[in-house]
């Protein structure tokens, strides 16, 4: 019987470089409080957000993705043609096909490179890292570009008090490459579709077409999401540390999805992280950018704390689905 050829597997992968692009407009709380009958203090106290980055009309999700992706490719020191895959996680691409990844890949010069989008909301970047690591370790790809990209300002309702005022726009990118020493741990990832309506869109495209429903926007059950995001995700975080063979004191940084400062603070408290671990709090001035939030926050942490470069970071995404994904990564 003919034996099929397969590529040899590799020991591991690691993140070689990151890239970041944020919306070009700072939207402060006072600009949003009118339609939700609220105040700057109310938003700060409940979310920790002072302002969020949003993209002006001309600045598209494609533009944000290309800017972030180009930075990551250049810093990784590779040519776009060397990429073995381009993966973009997004829930705000304005068309269902073609994928944002194929267009952005082409824009970046990754002609003929496999490219696809994934839909895993705020866990999307962690899902992308898990897939990139698997593609590299399997020998399928030598380098993979992962981008989390969102223009969430297009799917908000100014009168919504549940989630809209949290949201921002941006793209964060990572280039991963083969590594003799694993720089991405086993991922702990999963989904719980029984809680699909905890974070959701208000209606479908069919509702718009057939019943004149308004433009779909995001909603969430805030308190239920808070409980799940802190106490259930703390279990996931502990599990990923255990599987990776890493103690909390071994970490240089903790980068949870930037959902809400109250979630970040309570999450860090539940994990009992030592003071030596830097906690990402990019949400204060960027807002919640869903799939983009972890790479954007990591990118900023590395600028503010260059000493953590080469250290270990625990990253965990969680959101609509419900879905979650986490891994320990070695920082570029």
């Amino acid at each position, binding site marked *: 019987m003919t034996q099929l050829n397969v590529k040899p597997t590799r020991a591991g992968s690691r993140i070689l470089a990151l890239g970041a692009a944020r919306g070009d407009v700072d939207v402060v709380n006072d600009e949003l409080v009118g339609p939700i009958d609220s105040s700057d203090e109310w938003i700060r*106290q409940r979310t920790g957000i002072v302002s969020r980055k949003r993209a002006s009309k001309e600045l598209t999700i494609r533009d944000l993705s290309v800017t972030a992706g180009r930075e990551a490719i250049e810093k990784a020191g590779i040519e776009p043609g060397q990429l073995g895959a381009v993966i973009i996680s997004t829930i705000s691409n304005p068309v269902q096909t073609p994928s944002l990844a194929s267009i952005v890949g082409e824009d970046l010069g990754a002609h003929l490179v496999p490219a696809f989008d994934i839909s895993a909301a705020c866990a999307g970047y962690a899902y992308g890292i898990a897939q990139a690591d698997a593609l590299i370790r399997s020998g399928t790809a030598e380098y993979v570009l992962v981008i989390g990209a969102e223009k969430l300002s297009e799917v908000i309702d100014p009168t919504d008090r549940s989630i809209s005022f949290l949201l921002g726009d941006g793209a964060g990118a990572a280039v991963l490459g083969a590594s003799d020493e694993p720089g991405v741990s086993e991922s702990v990832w999963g989904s719980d579709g029984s809680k699909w309506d905890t974070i959701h869109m208000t209606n479908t495209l069919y509702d718009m077409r057939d019943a004149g429903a308004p433009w779909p926007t995001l909603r969430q*059950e*805030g*308190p*239920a999401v*808070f*409980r799940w995001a802190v*106490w259930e995700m703390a279990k996931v975080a502990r599990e990923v540390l255990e599987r990776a063979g890493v103690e909390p004191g071994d970490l240089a940084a903790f980068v949870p999805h930037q959902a*809400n400062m*109250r979630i970040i603070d309570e999450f860090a408290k539940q994990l009992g992280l030592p003071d030596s671990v830097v906690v990402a709090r990019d949400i204060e001035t960027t807002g919640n950018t869903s799939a983009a939030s972890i790479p954007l926050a990591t990118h900023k942490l590395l600028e503010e704390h260059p000493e953590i470069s080469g250290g270990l970071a625990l990253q965990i995404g969680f959101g609509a689905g419900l879905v979650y994904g986490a891994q320990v990564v070695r920082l570029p």
Partner: protein
Amino acid sequence: MAHTQDEVLAGLAELVKEETGIATESVQLDKSFTDDLDIDSISMMTIVVDAEEKFGVKIPDDQVQNLVTVKDAVDFIVGAQSE
């Protein structure tokens, strides 16, 4: 062993103090968590999770919105203990 209503009230008041800094004597049965004690939904959920652990009960998400007053919470916890 099941806690009495007074024990649950005292324990709950401690949890409220830990989360919000509100004095335990302010946490009385007729007080509303939102209107009287000014506890927001996120702090309320933290208190709920802490209460589950302290009293060994389950307080489902869809029940939390029904816990308007301190008495609602105390009664729910006392009742859930006996289940």
